[in-house]
């Protein structure tokens, strides 16, 4: 080991092997930090880049997949409609890992419908929302997550109450819902790792400041506000299966959430005494935190046992897109029978 970038993981790949094209986002953009943590998480989890697909919609956030994992298939689709793209694609080979990167406009405005339906269907994928409360590429309009009263240069004051993506995801029956802050890289990476091992949809709402259009100290989506108002629910670590045996769970101080594949999420209690497995409790906690003007981060809701979209289909072991042609066309005899009954 001669440096961070040179560290070789268990499948013989260095961090370099997980990189994408150089970012063309603004210097200091929160989204770059998200990209960095996706790269680190995938590297540390020994994910073969070719076994992962990355999809996105339209917007600054949706450019992000270009900047990580060049060796993975990617599709930069339409505004607000990444979930449908991901649904069709992941059915082709259900062993693929899916990462979707969306934004607050892409998810909470134009894409709200598809967002709610992909959570409801519990499509196994990691769904990251890079949430900055503002439209970047069209240069500084309010998004649906912008707080009421926010003042922006050209737009004046925001009249409307914001959409809370975490609340919507929980109400939409997503099976893994978290919030993080791109100024909190350690927590973000742990959540991404856990999300990648979760069986079902893992939604992470990442408050990701826009340094160009929405980073005033009093803005909810700024670095300064996030740093001074963040209340982490717990100190969170993702425990791969090898280490799981060694970890001692101190009773009363930690919550251990086992995932389906033998990995664990370990939550060390902090400010709140909080169990993330209760849907109604999660919403109540969010409402209270909101009243206290806190930016709650951490794993807010998880149900590792909820059945996924793929569980509802009796698919072959071999990927659908590798089925040989002869498996796809019924026999001539079957058509003769159909012709007999058509009347």
């Amino acid at each position: 080991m001669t440096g961070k970038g040179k560290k070789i993981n268990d499948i013989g790949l260095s961090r370099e092997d997980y990189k994408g094209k150089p970012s063309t986002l603004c210097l200091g953009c929160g989204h770059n930090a998200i990209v960095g943590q996706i790269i680190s998480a995938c590297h540390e989890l020994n994910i073969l880049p070719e076994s992962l697909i990355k999809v996105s919609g339209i917007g600054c956030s949706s450019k992000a997949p270009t900047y990580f994992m060049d060796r993975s298939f990617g599709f930069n689709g339409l505004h607000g409609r990444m979930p449908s793209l991901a649904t069709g694609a992941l059915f082709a080979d259900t062993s693929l890992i899916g990462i979707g990167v969306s934004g607050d406009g892409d998810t909470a405005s134009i894409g709200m419908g598809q967002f709610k339906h992909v959570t409801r269907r519990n499509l196994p994928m990691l769904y990251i929302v890079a949430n900055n409360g503002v439209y970047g590429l069209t240069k500084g309009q309010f998004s649906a997550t912008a707080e009421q009263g926010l003042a922006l240069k050209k737009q004046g004051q925001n009249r409307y109450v914001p959409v809370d993506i975490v609340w919507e995801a929980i109400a939409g029956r997503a099976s893994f819902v978290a919030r993080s802050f791109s100024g909190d890289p350690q927590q973000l990476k742990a959540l991404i790792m856990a999300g990648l091992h979760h069986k079902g949809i893992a939604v992470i709402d990442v408050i990701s400041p826009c340094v160009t259009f929405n980073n005033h100290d009093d803005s909810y989506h700024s670095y300064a506000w996030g740093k001074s108002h963040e209340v982490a629910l717990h100190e969170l670590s993702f425990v791969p299966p090898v280490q799981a045996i060694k970890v001692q769970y101190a009773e009363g101080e930690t919550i251990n959430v086992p995932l389906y594949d033998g990995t664990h999420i370990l939550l060390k209690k902090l400010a709140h005494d909080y169990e993330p497995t209760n849907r109604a409790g999660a919403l109540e906690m969010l409402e209270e935190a909101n009243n206290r003007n806190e930016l709650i981060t951490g794993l807010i809701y998880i149900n590792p046992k909820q059945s996924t979209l793929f569980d509802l289909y009796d698919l072959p072991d071999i990927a659908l897109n590798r089925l040989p042609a002869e498996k796809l066309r019924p026999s001539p005899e079957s058509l003769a029978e159909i012709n007999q009954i058509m009347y």
Partner: protein
Amino acid sequence: MAQTQSKKPVQRRLSGVNEFSINIGTENGSGSQTANLTILRAIFKMGVPVSGKNIFPSNIQGLPTWYKIRVSQSGYGGRRKEADIVVAMNPKTFTADQGDLVKGGLFLYADDIKDPIERDDMILVAMPVKKLVKEAKPHRDLRKFVANMIYVGVLANLLGIEMEPIKAALDYHFKGKESPVEFNIKMIERAYQWAEENLDLEIPYKIEPRDLTGNAILVDGNTAAGLGTIYGGMHFVSWYPITPATSLPEAILEYAPKLRLDPETGKSTYVIIQAEDELAAIGMCVGAGWAGLRAMTATSGPGLSLMAEYASLAYLSEIPIVIWVVQRVGPSTGLPTRTAQGDINLAYYLGQGDTKHIMLIPGNVKECFEFGWKALDLAEKYQTAVFCLSDLDLGKNQWMTEPFEYPDTPIERGKILWEEDLEKIKDEWGRYRDLDGDFIPYRTVPGNIHPKGAYFARGTGHDEFANYSEHPEVWRKNLDRIKNKIDSSKADIPEPVITKIREAKNGIIAFGSMDAALVEALDYLKADGVKLNYLRLRSLPASDQVLDFIRSHEKVYVLENNRDGQMHGILSLELPEKAQDMISIAMLDGLPINAEWIREAVLNEETD
């Protein structure tokens, strides 16, 4: 085009034995479809060619609905303007239904309708519907439904429809469930007996058993298209309910579980998913198509409008998908339960920018099956969106047709590279590089773990290696290649069907469900002394054969079921030098165009 007066009367050789039409007016939701299909199927079982059209409202229960049965041993399947027999079961349309009858036709009606009989040239039969139903003592809930069996029984008696095929039809309808079959048969027999004892009529209409249906089948176009898709090896269907397309994916839901389980493992070799809207339905298809699945969706005009942006993405990023469009009347919500060919322009050019898609246009239900599988092959071969344009008349009505033919070519997956293929490929592969000089690049699909296999698909400008590019030359070159690729499909897409007659100087072009009525109209016109060569267009972009047909005729009529003559416009753009010789014959009122109207419209032009 305005309705014109006949220059010469249509020859009345269409009323008689095995040659007549029945118009049945009932109330929506009263179960009349069971009765109507029973008549239709029984006549078919007697070996006599027959077709049925449901003229229905956008409603679950209560509004008027009609069923038109065309019995034609000459094989005509189009709608007749008038009916030889009218069955009037609905008081709300009692007066109007009298207007549909030919002079001296047979008018059957429920005797509890007290509205006035306004014509004195009809053969009247007042059926004691309520009395006969009451005597049969059906369960209270069933009264309304079995009432329709009365006209089945009366018609069976008057026309000579045999009881054996009626029973077979009911068995089929109720999938062998004994009690409804038995009760309905009893009701029919009761009505038959009443007619036997009380009616003594001289009518020219009769069903005489023939051997003219051979191994033909009776089926609707949506079922045919659904089955074609299944035999085409589709992997993925996503859809959103919309009239009149819904029964297409529903046919897949019905038949795929029987046909598409892997015989070795019993696992499902396909996925069907009802999406939250048409935006998602096509989005899922594009995702699936990108990832190497043969994907299909089905919709109608309003849904097609919503699909525009994804269609444009499929075109630019070169993703194979198939979109079935079962057209209904627009603009807007229009007439959701009536037929049209009004989305030709919308489908052909769907999407922002210079999009122009491959379009297949089945002209009968057999072709709905054939194009069902062919479209999937073409989409993968040309790596693009392929549209199949059907309509309500073709998709939702019962047509007699030759049996479905098993695909005569193997499944075509196009240029897909897997790991071992990438090892073998000599030139440097790039997702959008034209290595073969045929404008069609090679593609890889997710799951391919070769280190050089992955690429980044996008709706933005890209170079041959799929990298983002705003370079003017890169953009122009790529878009030109895509245009050439689509144009090169002309050699592969279904060629036109041309029917020539001697000494014809003029021609007529039609497509889709127009065929049935036009074939009949051409016979009338021949008798009128008007000779037309007929080209049935089956795909776009228009091939040389189509353009040669236009060039080689003095005048060419383009017949279509819309207001503005959309296909006429497309063909005029293809061949501007002949545009003035192309004459649009277009009409849209929600009903299938009939032969009489076509004849009059052509005669009007010919004598101008």
